[in-house]
């Protein structure tokens, strides 16, 4: 095992896949010379050259469309949208093109594309740089959605995403890049669609993703002597490992979903729907979702902190859900 940062894990995944497969190319803003504003593609330029590391003008729609078209033509582009908030400028390419081309063609074309981006608050960058859009991508059929929480998951999932023949939205978190974790020395992959139990417990099932996994684990520790919390990270929302979640809920009889996305209409609501659909009878208490307050992210530091779930508010939500 090696202890590496999240950003390093991503960087290794990309480099390994580029070594392995000539058809993998990188596309995005500021990804070449400075290695991406978060450093995920650091070193790629010198290692793979300008032909494969394509730094673009500020034209998300054009370069995402290019990536989609290149994927149809057999390349495996990994494009970067600097902040998920900017995906609003290329939603047609993502929702109407990448997600639908294969189906509309009757299965004749495929779009082996990975769109990497990062989400979330915590850096006082305000309402247009702090959003979480996984619910939007997961609602539109044709996109896979990965949302890793640890360096180990990030590397294994990204390698699988790059090898996947479907478009994958790969959602990182700006606060997790420096997070460290152990990864194997040898190559490994994590299949899309397999949840991971981050902590075992008996009384309450907590489903959390991305940064919220870490805060949920802290909260679980904090309430450990009151409640035995099981923390499950689905790691991908599409495909979703519902079996793992349902199995846990059958054991605990209680569910809390923790997400950084706005509480209303987030993917947590979908998890609640599927769980009540699958095992309503097993529920001893109302399943809950704890997400961000339903407001644009305020700039002011104390307000930003108050909007996003913290270990403290999650602990409170655990007590409510376990009551």
């Amino acid at each position, binding site marked *: 095992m090696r202890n590496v940062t999240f950003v390093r894990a991503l960087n290794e995944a990309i480099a390994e896949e580029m070594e392995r497969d000539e058809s993998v*190319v990188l596309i995005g803003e500021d990804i070449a010379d400075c290695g991406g504003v978060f450093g995920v593609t650091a070193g790629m330029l010198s290692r793979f050259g300008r*032909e*494969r590391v*394509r730094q*673009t*003008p500020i*034209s998300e*729609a*054009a*370069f*995402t*469309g*290019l*990536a*989609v*078209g*290149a*994927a*149809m*033509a*057999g*390349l495996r582009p990994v494009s970067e949208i600097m902040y998920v908030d900017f995906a609003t400028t290329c939603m*047609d*390419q993502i929702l*109407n*093109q990448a997600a639908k*081309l*294969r*189906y*509309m*063609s*009757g*299965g*004749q*074309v*495929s779009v*082996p594309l990975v769109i990497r981006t990062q989400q979330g608050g915590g850096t006082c960058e305000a309402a247009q740089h702090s959003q979480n859009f996984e619910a939007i991508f997961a609602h539109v*059929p*044709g996109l896979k959605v990965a949302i890793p929480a640890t360096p180990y998951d990030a590397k294994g999932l990204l390698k699988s995403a790059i090898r*996947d*023949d*479907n478009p994958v939205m790969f959602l990182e978190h700006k606060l997790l890049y420096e997070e460290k974790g152990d990864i194997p020395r040898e190559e490994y992959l994590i299949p899309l669609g397999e949840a991971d139990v981050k902590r075992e417990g008996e009384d309450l099932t907590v489903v959390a993703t991305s940064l919220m996994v870490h805060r949920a684990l802290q909260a679980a520790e904090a309430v450990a002597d009151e409640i035995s919390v099981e923390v499950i990270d689905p790691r991908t929302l599409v495909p979703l490992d519902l079996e793992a979640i349902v199995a846990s809920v059958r054991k605990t009889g209680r569910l809390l979903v923790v997400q950084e996305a706005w509480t209303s209409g987030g993917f947590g609501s979908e998890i609640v729907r599927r769980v009540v659909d699958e095992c309503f009878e097993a529920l001893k208490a109302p399943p809950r979702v704890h997400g961000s307050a339903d407001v644009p992210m305020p700039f002011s530091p104390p307000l930003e902190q108050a909007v996003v779930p913290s270990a403290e508010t999650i602990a409170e939500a655990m007590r409510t859900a376990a009551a």
Partner: protein
Amino acid sequence: MDIGRDELREMLRLMITIRRFELKAQELFEEGLARGQFLGALHSYEGQEAVAVGVCAHLREDDYVLSSHRGHGHAIAKGAEVRRMMAELLGKETGISRGRGGSMHMFAPGIGLMGGNGIVGGGTPLALGPAFAAQYRGTDQVTVCFFGEGAAAQGVFHESLNLASLWELPVIYVCENNLWAATTPIADAWPVQDLAPRAEAFGMPGLTVDGNDVLAVHEAAGEAVDRARGGGGPTLVEAKTYRHRPHCMVIPEHRDEEEREKWHARDPIPRFEGRLLEQGVLSDIEVADLRTEIDAELEEAADFARESELPGTETIHEHLWA
């Protein structure tokens, strides 16, 4: 003209085939209505045949085409099977997109037809992709993107010109300026009456051509395709043309009689046919035979479409994931 007789005949054949395909398509659409079945948005290519044919005459099977919502002509000119296109219009399993795409989404990747698009301008950034792939792999394949003058108001079209020029991609943007976008006249969309200056503002050549003269289109497209194949980068070609039909089957005609007559008088098919007869490239009999041959092909195609099976409803989840 330095085009061989067979190629000229083939161009005429394709132009007439497109024209007749549209007539058959309308027939099938009306049969549908009679059954109480509305078969979606059907956009006729009639009147613009010279553009698709003049451009695609330069393309190889391994070159790519990104088409629009008005794409039947592009597909036929690129070599798509007419019978499978016809079946697609009826949503049959034998359709060119297995009935999942319909008129606006005809795909035949085997011949480089990477699909129409229901989003106006939607194809313009996608076209950068196959062009980039060819450049990356070092092949000499080119990519052609067809779109209308209305689409030229879309931002993504400009982003695409910029990137194509910057990266010297082997792509040809062909604007079919038929003066109208649905019910909106070009005067309400273009402050400047030509598109070439926009190309030049992005550092790429812009050509303007009579889109109802297949030989003029052929010449301009030849220059653009040669440049792209030779590594000389992208070109924007504006072809001035006109659609003979209303925007689509369900939208009533809104263009004035006079304008329509003026353009019908410049119908690209009689123009080209007359020229070939005049110059003795083809004889009256040969043209008559050609038309009979085409009519027969389209009758057969329509029957094939009518008789083919619809997909089973149990298949709705197929073809979503690779």
